[in-house]
């Protein structure tokens, strides 16, 4: 098995036209030209968009999850419809709806800058996914926990916020990280809202650079840039998870 795989790799390596690949994907002067904007604009914007979308989405998700588990039927119905709707739509469609649909529907109403519109759009989508994650986390906390808290005289809400949610969040750190990594990549959809030189995120920046340099190197660079963000992030979260695990 391994021998075949190794042979295949060697075969592909021999067959590949290395000088061409190097010329198209690893041009040093193109790489050099991409700095410092790659970091000062593109990576920075990706980070800002992601943080904003995640923060907004998380608040939204928490509200939706609580509504979804509420005893009030209209709350439950609203949360269910919302979640099904925005999980079902492609993020791109939601972004276009927010960016172009809203202004058409409400006579030029524009929700702030590209940054705000994009982040709200992604947050709306992420909120739907994370709401279900949070709900799953809450349901994974043993029943006895809320019984013990209620027996001490805590109200339903107090029990949720002091006893249940803190435990639920520990449980859902891995799926939330997943959601965050997905969001980082989804910020590449911001381009549909139109960009200015200062508002480009990594993918848009690379695509424009590919056109101007007539070379594919920016694609390689930006791929590495994404990994440079996601890999340390997952590492940090894994450490956080291990620390949280100490009390469980």
């Amino acid at each position: 098995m391994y021998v075949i795989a190794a042979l295949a790799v060697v075969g592909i390596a021999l067959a590949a036209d290395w000088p061409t690949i190097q010329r198209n994907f690893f041009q040093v002067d193109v790489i050099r030209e991409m700095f410092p904007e790659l970091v000062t604009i593109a990576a920075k914007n990706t980070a800002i968009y992601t943080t904003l979308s995640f923060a907004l989405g998380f608040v939204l998700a928490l509200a939706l999850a609580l509504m979804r588990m509420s005893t009030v039927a209209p709350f439950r119905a609203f949360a269910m419809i919302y979640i099904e709707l925005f999980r079902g739509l492609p993020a791109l469609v939601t972004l276009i709806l927010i960016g172009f649909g809203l202004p058409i529907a409400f006579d030029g109403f524009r929700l702030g800058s590209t940054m705000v519109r994009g982040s709200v759009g992604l947050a709306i989508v992420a909120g739907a996914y994370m709401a279900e994650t949070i709900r799953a986390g809450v349901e994974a906390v043993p029943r006895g926990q809320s019984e013990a808290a209620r027996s001490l005289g805590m109200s339903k809400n107090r029990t949720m916020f002091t006893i249940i949610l803190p435990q639920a969040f520990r449980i859902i750190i891995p799926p939330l990280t997943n959601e965050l990594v997905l969001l980082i990549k989804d910020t590449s959809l911001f381009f549909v809202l139109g960009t200015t030189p200062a508002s480009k995120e990594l993918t848009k920046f690379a695509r424009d650079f590919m056109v101007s340099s007539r070379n594919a190197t920016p694609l390689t660079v930006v791929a590495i840039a994404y990994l440079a963000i996601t890999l340390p992030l997952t590492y940090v979260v894994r450490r956080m998870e291990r620390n949280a695990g100490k009390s469980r």
Partner: protein
Amino acid sequence: MSTDATEAATETASDVAIRVLELHKYFGDLEVLKGIDFQVDHGEVVCVIGPSGSGKSTLLRCINRLEESTSGNIFIEGDDITDPDADVDLLRTRIGMVFQQFNLFPHLTVLRNLTVGQTKVLKRSKTEAVQIAEEMLERVGLSEKRDEYPIRLSGGQQQRVAIARSLCMKPDMMLFDEPTSALDPELVGEVLEVMRTLADEGMTMMVVTHEMGFASEVADRVVFMDEGIVVEEGPPAQVLKDPQTERAQKFLKMIDHA
């Protein structure tokens, strides 16, 4: 609420801690409590025994409304808690509850487990809460564990912390739902010891248990339940040593041979 019930409750309100009248509880179509009449006086220790599925845990859980009864009344020191307008949260601060599975909060240290109810519910100051918590930890003999997380404690220690957590609320009475059933045999003794001390200090206690030794030594009264009714009750010497009903005789014989 019927007038009869009101009178019955007010007559004895002062010395009756828990009074249960004609209590019925259904889970779907299944009737698990079939008209329970029952009371616990102040300072009394009552052990409830009986086969599993007899409804003893359900009865206990109805008393602090972790389960909602279907019909009937429950009075806590004269207050009808089955009243839909009753303040359940306030009521629960007066009733300590100890669970089979301990149910300590795993994300909080032992000390925080003991203070969280005091500060958030009773609005005691942090200093006061910590002081009371330390006092209660000392009572259950676990002062040195105050900064540990529950996971680091043995089952017996966890249950003692759980008892201390309830005591911190300064409850008028304590309910125990099979407090030693989840413990390894060698850890049962330390928990029973704490409960015995509590009983000696005059705490009103209702204990669902399979520990016949504890029941016969500590209980003022033993209640035998089977299939949703109170079959027999009386002093431990009578119910445990000389049961009158056939069902109680059968149950005690089975336990003896276990």
